[in-house]
């Protein structure tokens, strides 16, 4: 273990420079932010992830945000275990009818001010699952959505750009 730790100390950092915030996402979230909220939150956001019916592909890439290359926490963004501690809900999947109530309850448990980021193509409109007897549709059919990050699944870098846009919009109050 000592050898591994020592190597990590002397080797160059794997963490890559921050990507520019996504312009389209900036415009999208700009409207959603109230000035009071910006003052209160500064440059730090707590995120609660909710899988509302995804295939798990989006979760894999959200996980990757925590690895040494993307290092999400350096931006003041971190995942929390409870919606009661969260400012942002990152929601994936077409919302299934069996997850609808759980998503509503999670949203209700999240204190104001709060934002919802819908992640992935299914989260926009149900994707290839739209029209099924078991699917409600996109996330916005159940809770209000402030930002959408497209992709199947969106690569971590795209998610980072979207989240940075959210952060920037909040900080620019």
């Amino acid at each position, binding site marked *: 273990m000592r050898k591994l730790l020592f190597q990590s100390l002397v080797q160059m950092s794997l963490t890559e420079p921050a990507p520019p915030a996504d312009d389209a996402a900036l415009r999208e979230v700009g409207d959603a932010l109230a000035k009071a909220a910006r003052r209160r939150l500064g440059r730090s956001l707590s995120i609660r992830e909710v899988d509302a019916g995804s295939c798990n592909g989006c979760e894999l890439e959200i996980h990757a945000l925590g690895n040494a290359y993307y290092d999400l926490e350096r931006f003041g963004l971190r995942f929390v275990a409870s919606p009661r501690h969260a400012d942002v809900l990152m929601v994936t999947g077409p919302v299934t009818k069996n997850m609808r109530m759980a998503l509503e309850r999670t949203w209700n448990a999240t204190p104001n001010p709060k934002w919802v980021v819908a992640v992935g193509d299914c989260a926009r409109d149900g994707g290839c699952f739209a029209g099924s*007897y078991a699917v409600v549709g996109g996330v916005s059919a159940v809770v209000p959505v402030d930002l959408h990050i497209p992709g199947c*699944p969106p690569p971590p870098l795209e998610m980072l750009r979207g989240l940075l846009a959210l952060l920037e919009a909040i900080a620019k109050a």
Partner: protein
Amino acid sequence: MAGLTEFLRKGDIASSHRPFPRTAATVEMWNETIAALASGQWQLLGLWGEPDRVHMALRDEADEAIAVMTLDCPSRRYPSVGLHHPPALRLERSVRDLFGLEPIGLPDQRGWLDHGNWDIRHPLAARPDATPIDKAYAFLPIEGDGLHQIPVGPVHAGIIEPGHFRFTANGETVVRLEQRLGYVHKGIEGLMAGANLDAAGKLAARTSGDSTVAYGFAFARAVEAALGVEAPPRARHLRALMAELERIANHLGDFGAICNDASFALIQAHCAVLREKVLRTAHASFGHRLMRDRIVPGGVTTDIGSDGITAIRALLADIRAHFPDLVELYDNTASLQDRTVTTGTVKAHLVRQYAPGGYVGRAGGRAFDVRRNLAYAPYDKLDFDVPVLDTGDVNARVWIRIREIEQSLAMIAQLLDSLPQGALRIDLPVAHELCESMALVEGFRGDILVWLRLDAGNRVARCHLRDPSWFQWPLLEAAIEDNIVADFPLCNKSFNCSYSGHDL
């Protein structure tokens, strides 16, 4: 009782089912089969429905035979398999939810996938019922002093899929875990009915995101078997290349996450870096980090260039240089071993009964890997071992993953050395009449089964996708018994069952 192959001849063998035989059984044959499953002579590989019949996929290990047995149920009832052979319980509850077929004698009357939210009942039956089932769900009753319950989910604390776990504990010790799944049921099999091959393939590749390659592979093989064609040699190699990259990425993720659940974050940090390198190489070589939609019926959509081959060779060298240090660290850290050794043991008799695939089976003495047992192309030409251990604990499931990463690295090197030139894809013939098939492909989690019926014109009439998790989830309930609550994440991660693949 006779071997499976001989037994099947008693029924009507369907002429259009490839490559495994399918027999239309009599009720007597169905009951004899239940007895053979209950006695352990045969293994259950799957059980699924259609509006007016049920099918079972069976394996006879002694005979090394696999077959499908079908029972017509014009009265919409059939003798329950789960009554005598518990691995069929949840499958039969699901068939009842979706098709309204009643397993006579099934001890559990509760819905499984249907939570009463669909607005209809029996959505895949010929005539769905307009009244949904009751939303109330009765968990198993608890009796005894000093017991308390801990409900968890469906929204979990981590970044994982949704499901509900109901723990009953006595102090720190779990005396029972009852799972409730179905939250991410998307109705994939319903959407597939009537879909063209393109749309159905996309749905198959979105059944379980971590196994998108394996599902695409299995669906493509099923279509090709039904139409009686094979993908070109270069495509077969590229498919296996992607499948092994997917296996390595998932095993690396699991190895790190298991250690992290024992609060040993260092291995997790290094595994996450290696996993990211695999995904970046996949993107550089095949144009998508998870290699989704690259395998299609008839071949593959993406070729690999010399840059891609160089990138994969560099990846192999990188993992070979760094992975052994992590393995050594795992093996030599007493505090970590203390958490994984003898934790979450799956007993040998349950492994025999449930016949789980993947590392859950192979960590408990079940030497079954369809890359070896069915040796589909190109695995028939590759030199590899199937690691098997017999302790059945978290530690054994970790070691199976470690050994499989090593095997997959060696397989990828062989695939690159022998990559044939030629076409990537063939044009599929159009079926003139109904044709059926079944395919099994080894995903990182175990064997994925796809059963398919194509209409004339290549439309999907019915497609059933059976995730390996169906026979693994119930064993997690058994494995956590008598362990402490705090070890559940560790046990759960060592199984890493799919929610989406199971709920479908």
